[in-house]
């Protein structure tokens, strides 16, 4: 099913998506999208959505199940508190990517803005995964509580990450292809030893990432990764508790 999104408000567009899903349609193409917010927000369904244009703020927030491909950029707060499903952006995204995300996967082909992966979290089998092909700005993985973030920095003309990486981090794992300087790290993280299980994990997600964007896995997999973990489970525990 094709929905022409031109001149549709975010409300009308989401109503159309929901009524299509309700009638059993499982493949939807949204044409001429430009900045509509909350696309597929809170949607609990097994549906494949292709978006052509610029997806607005809070794309796929609270969503549980859908697979979304964006052929263009997405704005701020993609995958806000997302539960399950997959978001693939064939372009760049704005700030606070994956805010409080608690499940599912997000693949970004190019760059993400500030605070990518802020406060993503995990619980038991719910382990969210974010893979970013390009670079990120400051406060990458700020307050990260769980899950996995893989940063590839495929455009070597750009610095892979800014400063304050993992500030306030207290759970989960960050993998950065290549190296970052110690001064770029927040006070609450440190580089840790790379294990064989890490290799398997990266291999698995990299292969999936590469097939999403038709990238050559062999070229990307050659370089070593830096692994970052939180130093403490409760970095600010002593500030508030006596």
């Amino acid at each position, binding site marked *: 099913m094709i929905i022409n999104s031109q001149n549709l408000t*975010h409300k009308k567009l989401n109503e159309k998506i929901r009524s299509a899903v309700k009638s059993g349609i499982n493949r939807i193409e949204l044409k001429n999208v*430009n*900045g509509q*917010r909350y696309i597929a927000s809170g949607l609990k369904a097994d549906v494949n959505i292709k978006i052509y*244009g*610029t997806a*607005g*703020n809070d794309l796929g927030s609270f969503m549980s199940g859908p697979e979304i491909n964006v052929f263009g*950029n997405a*704005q*701020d707060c993609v995958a806000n508190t997302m539960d399950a499903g997959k978001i693939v952006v064939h*372009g*760049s995204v*704005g*700030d606070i990517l994956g805010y409080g995300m608690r499940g599912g996967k997000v693949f970004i082909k190019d*760059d993400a*803005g*500030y*605070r990518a992966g802020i406060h993503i979290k995990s619980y038991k089998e719910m382990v969210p995964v974010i893979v970013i092909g390009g670079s990120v*700005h*400051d*406060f990458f993985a700020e307050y990260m509580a769980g899950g996995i973030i893989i940063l590839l920095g495929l455009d070597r003309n750009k610095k892979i990450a*800014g*400063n304050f990486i993992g500030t306030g981090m207290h759970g989960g794992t960050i993998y950065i292809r290549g190296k970052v300087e110690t*001064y770029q790290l927040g006070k609450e993280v440190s580089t840790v030893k790379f294990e064989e299980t890490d290799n398997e994990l990266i291999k698995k997600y990299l292969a999936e990432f590469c097939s999403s964007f038709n990238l050559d896995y062999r070229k990307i997999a050659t370089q070593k990764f830096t692994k970052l973990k939180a130093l403490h489970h409760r970095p600010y525990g002593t500030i508030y508790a006596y």
Partner: protein
Amino acid sequence: MGCSIAGIIDEKGNRFSGEKIICAIKKMYLRANGLGGGFAGYGIYPENSDDFCFHIIYNDEKSRENTESYLKHDFEIVKEEPIPTRTVKAIVNRPLLFRYFLRVKDEIKKQFYEMTEEDIVMRSVMKINGAQAGAFVISSGKNMGIFKGVGYAADIGKFYKLEEYSGYCWIAHDRFPTNTPGWWGGAHPFGLLNFSIVHNGEISSYGINKRYLEEFGYRLTLHTDSEAILYLFDLLLRKHKLPMSLAHKVLCPPLWSEIEKMPEDERKFYETLRIIYGSALINGPSAIIVSDGKMMFGFTDRLKLRPLVAARNGSKFYLASEECAIQEICPLKKGDVFFPKVGEPAIGKLRNTEQTRNKGTRNGHGKFRFSSV
């Protein structure tokens, strides 16, 4: 998710209708709540380009009479007229809206021989706005004007018939007031002389900035923090003659942790800058667009707590809170869009206008080359 900002400059100076900027700001209407919207346009009064143009809002006829007699004392009034408007149902409680094309009288120039014409104009603006007599000068530059009020920006643009104006640079704001009242004078942009500014955010350093500015003759009367940023730019760029790149470093200096890592001479420079201009630092979440008619630039606070997207296409340079606002008026290719980094303003400049006051230069990394000051 309050407030949206947008700006367009044609670097070749080609003029275009105000319709484009209305279209861009309208796209982000979800960020506003109808309690303030406005626009600044540059190049819109070519017939009177050498005169100062005052846009004034009046509460009543009495304040108009008083203000006009004051204006007549200091200025030769070349032309005066109501600002043209059309009926827009959503725009209510309208003040009286007038514009004046003014020249400073020779006798006044003689009387204030130690002041520049701009200083005299600023003195007049502060006097009118500070009198609290129901008259507010909302713009006072040359060949530019600010059009603002209470309502959504798209309605305000329609109300002022902005599609009938053409300018080479436009900035716009759609407001979601949080800390201060939504009133006609409090809508953005704020303007003084050729400077105009739109701001999404809040300035928690307002008290310090206000006291600092008052020492230089500024009177902050518009019940909003954003006004302070405007006067800081006027002070630093026009009065202290700092280059823009350095003025930006005063308002948003590098973090102390960054200064610590600098080579010694650069570190000393920034330490000194922070000491001299400590009271001019603006603290708080912000995305800001400023124009002086020669350039338009945007920047965010150092922690990037508000959004700002930039794009370049042909001779036009765009800034907006969201990418969709730019896409709406100019379909962009991949690579046209970029996200300005904190600490580095995104700049569009009129070409062939040499910034003679701009003694500093910028190196390839966008850092101010401090040794040339």
